[in-house]
Each structure stands twice: as C-alpha cells, then as structure tokens.
C-alpha cells in the first residue's frame, strides 16, 4: 500500500502507534488505513510501526521512541500496560513529538 508517488531520496515519515495491535479490531485496521490515506493525500511516504504498551513500561527505556516523528496512542483498552501507554504519552509531550490519541 505504498503511496503511488514519492519524492526520490526523501525518507518516509516514521509514525509509532502505541497500542496492542489486534487484526480482529476494525478500529486498529482503520488506524493503519488512515495513516496510509494521509500519506497518499500528502504525497509522502509513511512508515508506521505498532509499539506494544508492555514494551515501553518501566524499566524499558522510552527513548527508543525518539526514532519516531509522530506518536499515535491507539484505541482499544484495556492496554496490556497502562503504564507503558502513559509513559509514551508523557514522552511525546516532553519531547514535543507530534501526538494524537484517539
């Protein structure tokens, strides 16, 4: 589902989706599809990766989230780790990473 046209040499934007992906959930599939649609609309490459909440809870280091240009806290509670979800939201806020939670 790569966007049809990309500017050669421009790195795709990296989006981290905080949540516990379940392909059975329409809202999770829609989250991916919405990012792909946004990429097409902006004529930009969008790479996204789901980050499970229990992989960013203490003592795990949230600094691995710095590789993302934007963070999206996905729906679908309860999260496996509420702590992990809150850690990532705080990280986005403190590092001024564009954030959306839906």
């Amino acid at each position, binding site marked *: 589902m790569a966007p049809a046209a990309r500017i050669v040499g421009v790195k795709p934007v990296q989006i981290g989706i905080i949540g516990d992906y379940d392909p059975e959930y329409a809202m999770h599939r829609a989250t991916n599809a919405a990012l792909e649609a*946004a*990429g097409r609309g902006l004529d930009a490459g969008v790479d996204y990766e789901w980050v499970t909440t229990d992989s960013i809870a203490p003592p795990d280091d949230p600094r691995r989230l710095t590789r993302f*240009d*934007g963070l999206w806290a996905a729906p679908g509670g309860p999260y496996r780790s509420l702590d992990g979800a809150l850690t990532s939201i705080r990280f986005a*806020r403190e590092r001024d990473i564009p*954030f*959306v939670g839906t």
Partner: protein
Amino acid sequence: MLGLPDAAHAEYGADPETALITPAACVIPDDAAGARLTGKQRVRLTPGSLSARVYESTEIAAEFHCRNELNRRYQVLFERSDLRVVGVGDEGEARIVELAGGRFFIATLFLPQMAVLEDEPIPLIDAFVGAALNASRAKT
C-alpha cells in the same frame, strides 16, 4: 499534569465515581470485532483552537465509539492546566482535548480513523502526519 493525586481509569479497577476516566453515560454501539458503527455525535469545537483550525470548522460529526469518558467532576481541572477541553458533545461532555501552546498534541474521545472505511477525509490524521513530516524535516 492536573494535580490529581490518584488519577485513575475505571477500566483498570478504579471506583467509577472518583476515577478520572469513567464509563460513558451515552449508549455505545456494539464494538465486537468490526461491527458496523451506528450514529455520529455532534462535537462543537472552540474557535481558534488547534482542533478547530485542523477541521476548518467549529462543528464536526464524530464517530463516538468509546466505552469511557472523562469524569465531568474533573473537567474543571483542565481549565487550570495547559490541557484544554476544545471539543464538547451536546451535553458539554469532553470529546477533544489539546495542549495549549501551539504544539501538535490532540486527544479525542472518538475514533476519527473510522471515517477511512467510508472513504471520507480525516483532517485530524492528515494534520498529524503533516506535523510529523515537518518534525522529520526539522531533524535533518
């Protein structure tokens, strides 16, 4: 963030009376694996907010599909923090919050991404990806 000592979420076992996030009072459509959503709720946006600029409107129809909402007894706390309630439903219930200060930090209590299933535009997600794109360009 809000100065609330024990912010909690009823879905994680907190008392729904005092939890910050509580079960939604409105009727929620079935959400079992991909069930079709029914109905949209009107959300009024604060003029001049980032969200209103993103939507280019002060009123949107939102797919509300969440079992939880902000406990109204704490909504007032937001007015003293840099988080702002900028989108409300017909009963004044919080539906969108954002950070003051021009940063792209928006949370909704509805699911804007579901519009993709109808092939409708999603201004919030387009703006989010656009902000991320700008952030990525600023890095290099």
